């Protein structure tokens, strides 16, 4: 028998006290035990990016980190982007630029983009395209995703 771990995950500013096996990935823990199902799971081995979220402001694959490793870390997921009824500029931009169809990949792309733009607000077009190549979308095609993120980047830079 392996040991169980009593941990607290801080997701979008809210504490969730849960008990996990060490083998439980962060993606599974936040979905199954914290009820935050906005973060999607596709490949479970780091390739697709649908599980991308922010750990202390940095985009990571939540299928490649164990929940026990995430105590005391600020976790941000797609559920934390909108302020009440007010969508995040990236969410609005995805709608305006038709950057999603089925939406399965969208939470991962949004969190990837939020992380990139918060860390590199002046990112070049070439670097942005390279960074967005981190995630897979099976239906939209990437051109509209790049457009949406570019437009949101310009809006965020211009300020409210």
């Amino acid at each position, binding site marked *: 028998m392996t040991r169980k771990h009593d941990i607290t995950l801080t997701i979008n500013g809210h504490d969730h006290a849960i008990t996990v096996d*060490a083998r439980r990935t962060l993606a599974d823990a936040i979905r199954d035990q914290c009820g935050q199902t906005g973060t999607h799971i596709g490949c479970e*081995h780091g390739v697709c990016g649908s599980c991308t979220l922010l750990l202390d402001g940095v985009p990571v694959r939540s299928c*490649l980190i164990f929940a026990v490793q995430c105590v005391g870390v600020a976790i941000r997921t797609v559920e934390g982007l909108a302020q009440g009824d007010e969508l995040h500029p990236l969410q609005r931009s995805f709608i305006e630029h038709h950057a999603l169809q089925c939406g399965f990949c969208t939470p991962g792309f949004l969190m990837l983009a939020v992380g990139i733009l918060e860390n590199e607000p002046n990112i070049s077009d070439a670097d942005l395209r390279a960074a967005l190549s981190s995630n897979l979308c099976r239906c939209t095609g990437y051109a509209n995703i790049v457009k949406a993120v570019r437009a949101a980047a310009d809006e965020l830079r211009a300020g409210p």
Partner: protein
Amino acid sequence: MKPAAFEYHAARSVEEAVATLAEVAPDQGRILAGGQSLVPTMAFRLATPEHLVDINGIEELGRLAVEDGVLSIGACVRHAAFHRPVTDGGLGAILTFMAGHIGHYPIRQRGTFCGSLAQADPSSEWCLAAVTLDATITAQSTRGRRTIAGADFIQGIMTTALEDDELLVETRIALPAADTRFGFAEFSRRAGDFALAMALVSFRLSGGVMHDARLGIGGAEDHPRRIPQAEAALDGQPPGSQAFEAAAAAVAAALDPMEDAGTSAQYRRELAQCLARRALESAAESAAA
């Protein structure tokens, strides 16, 4: 797929990490660094370690420093630390360029330089750097510390000189002479994939001819290595297409490339030849620091 059960140990110091590792290594205990190779392998159940010793909480292992002409890279220094040059001059710039070829942006936020060496994937950019630039690797266990040369450390596909109870503590790279020029080129079929072949080169110039040439090839054979025949084709020659073609031809002649379903040995050989030439051309173009 989900990883199999294991016992988790969060180490707070290097001493604690190696003491725990000494205890659990006989039961398939392993170090957990960035997890960007280990966790996928566990998800596929290709690895089923019974214990993981997490080193991410060990502050001293996050050390990235340039001191006394040496770049020291601690075990918890992430790939993303190289997104901006870590030193002035050609070395910092080439490491930044190479880092951009490792997986994807989020992978680089977690994966570590030293973890790449411990993993020893044939297509690892950092393994190629360690071998070509003569890195020195420090390993520690309860039996003490030792240092291992980069070329002796990487022994084959996912095979290194590390013993099961040893922690790779840091990697050191001597800063090159300020006038050293660097070039790197790799090819992969899709962004973020492991490369099918890659080349890292450096040389110095004096009196219009190259000297101290280094030329390493990764991804083509089961581990990266320098190609002495190619380096000999560069030393004493002026930089230019004649010497570069000769060195690239020497690469093709020296390699015994891997084969897989999608990639023949001949294809990898020609790819390595082409990449060696491209890396040399970009070194020639790069301004000497």
